[in-house]
């Protein structure tokens, strides 16, 4: 009797093993699919960040030009003592805002940061940017498919690039 139970037990073990492997394989599939879909939705605008010139960067990011608007309020210091840390913020009274971007005209790469504003998020953002030297700072707000901008010159006494 003992000689016949041996092979039966191993065959059962092998079958069980195969079944659990199959289940694991199926379970993994949905997890693998999610990150790929998320990445496709919010693609990083690599090309826009490579543009040296402000106008080119705006074109690469949005594909159109902006018009100045007093509904975009850009808050930045007149004089920045340290160009490595310039506190900058933007608020706007415009409706249907979908994104807000910051450009520093004289930086090696003009586009500094771009924010996607979801429905229900207040159209305003505060952050800190590096500025190589005294330069125009431009904030662009995309609202209802149109671009609106505000510009302010910030004087930098010590640059943010090495120094």
């Amino acid at each position, binding site marked *: 009797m003992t000689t016949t139970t041996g092979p039966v037990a191993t065959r059962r073990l092998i079958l069980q093993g195969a079944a659990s492997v199959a289940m694991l394989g199926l379970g993994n599939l949905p997890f693998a699919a999610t990150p790929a879909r998320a990445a496709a939705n919010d693609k*990083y605008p690599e090309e826009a960040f490579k543009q040296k010139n402000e106008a080119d960067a705006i074109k690469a990011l949005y594909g159109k030009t902006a018009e100045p608007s007093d509904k975009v309020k850009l808050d930045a210091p007149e004089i920045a003592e340290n160009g490595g840390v310039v506190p900058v913020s933007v608020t706007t009274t415009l409706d249907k805002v979908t994104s807000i971007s910051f450009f520093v005209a004289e930086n090696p790469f003009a586009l500094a*940061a771009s924010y996607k*504003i979801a429905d229900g998020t207040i159209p305003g953002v505060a952050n800190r940017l590096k500025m190589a030297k005294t330069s125009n700072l431009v904030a662009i707000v995309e609202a209802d498919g149109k671009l609106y901008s505000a510009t302010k010159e910030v004087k930098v006494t010590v640059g943010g690039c090495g120094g």
Partner: protein
Amino acid sequence: MASSIRVRATSNGDITEVQALIQHPMDTGLVKNPAGELIPAHYIQQLKFECNGKDVFVADWGTAVSKDPYVKFSFKGAKKGDDLKISWTDNKGGSDTTTAKIA
């Protein structure tokens, strides 16, 4: 390791205000070290805030964002006790994630 992300999310009824501070070198790739060698670019490219399964705020960053970046924004549609998930990825494939409770 302690998280590189520090977040404060406070709700005042309808609006939730979020402040985040991240520890990151944000090297531009244009600065030389004392030995005269270029320090390679190392910066956060994307920072995401997710609340109740929705991306409320997505930041795409270049090298011109300051070292140890700070960002502040507000959004509607969340209440006290909700989870806010924050995650970033950098140009070298590094990333970090944390979850904060809205207070």
